[in-house]
């Protein structure tokens, strides 16, 4: 009887150890994949940034060159400013929710969804792709529209989170 019991316990232990190793491998793989994707994205941004600098020098009109250079920086500044602001608002919402009694699961989940989206948006880099000097306005406009659309879609999630928190206060 004791032998059977020992074997049973041994099987349970080896099973759980194997399961843990299995999960660990999966986590390691997804972490490696994420790191790989991040590096790939960084290389891509670096390449686009270098192309931007090269093409910027080709613009003959010095005034236009300066405007494009400034806007390229401003796009990323606006992205950083807006995402920081949204993150601050989400922190405030979490603090408010912590003081609410009752069911807050739905609001909490909405805040987390918005927070994840803000983190992804904050990691984005916007680089102007210069085609020709006469199409500068269009090239810059494309990036501006993209930035605006991205920030608006993240802001929609922040608004949804705010509405979810508001619903818990009724």
């Amino acid at each position, binding site marked *: 009887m004791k032998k059977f019991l020992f074997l049973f316990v041994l099987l349970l232990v080896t099973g759980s150890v194997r399961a843990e190793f299995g999960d660990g491998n999966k986590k390691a793989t997804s972490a490696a994949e994420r790191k790989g994707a991040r590096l790939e994205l960084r290389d891509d941004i670096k390449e686009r940034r270098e192309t931007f600098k090269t093409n910027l020098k080709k613009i003959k009109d010095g*005034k*236009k060159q300066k*405007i*494009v250079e*400034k*806007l390229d920086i*401003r*796009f990323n500044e*606006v992205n950083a*400013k*807006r995402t920081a*602001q949204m993150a601050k*608002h989400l922190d*405030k*919402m979490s603090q*408010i929710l912590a*003081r*609410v*009694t009752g069911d807050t699961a739905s609001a909490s989940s909405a805040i987390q969804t918005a927070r994840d989206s803000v983190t992804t948006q904050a990691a984005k880099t916007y680089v102007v792709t210069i085609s020709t000097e006469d199409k*500068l*306005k269009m090239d*810059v*406009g494309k990036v*501006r529209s993209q930035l*605006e659309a991205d*920030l*608006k879609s993240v*802001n929609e999630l922040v608004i949804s989170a*705010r509405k979810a*928190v*508001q619903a818990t*206060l*009724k």
Partner: protein
Amino acid sequence: MKKPLIIIVSVLLLVALVFLGYKLFYKPAPPPEDLKSELMLTEDDGGQADFDLLTQDAVGL
């Protein structure tokens, strides 16, 4: 000391401790109206001012 006296003193001390604990650590939930006003502080223009500035910056292209 007599046993009943010890019991009475202990009970009184316990009641005093519970009362003190309640006064010091219990914070009643704030009224929803206060939280609603706090929540309103998380509202903004969605970055419209920044987008308008970007439009101004692009003048001259």
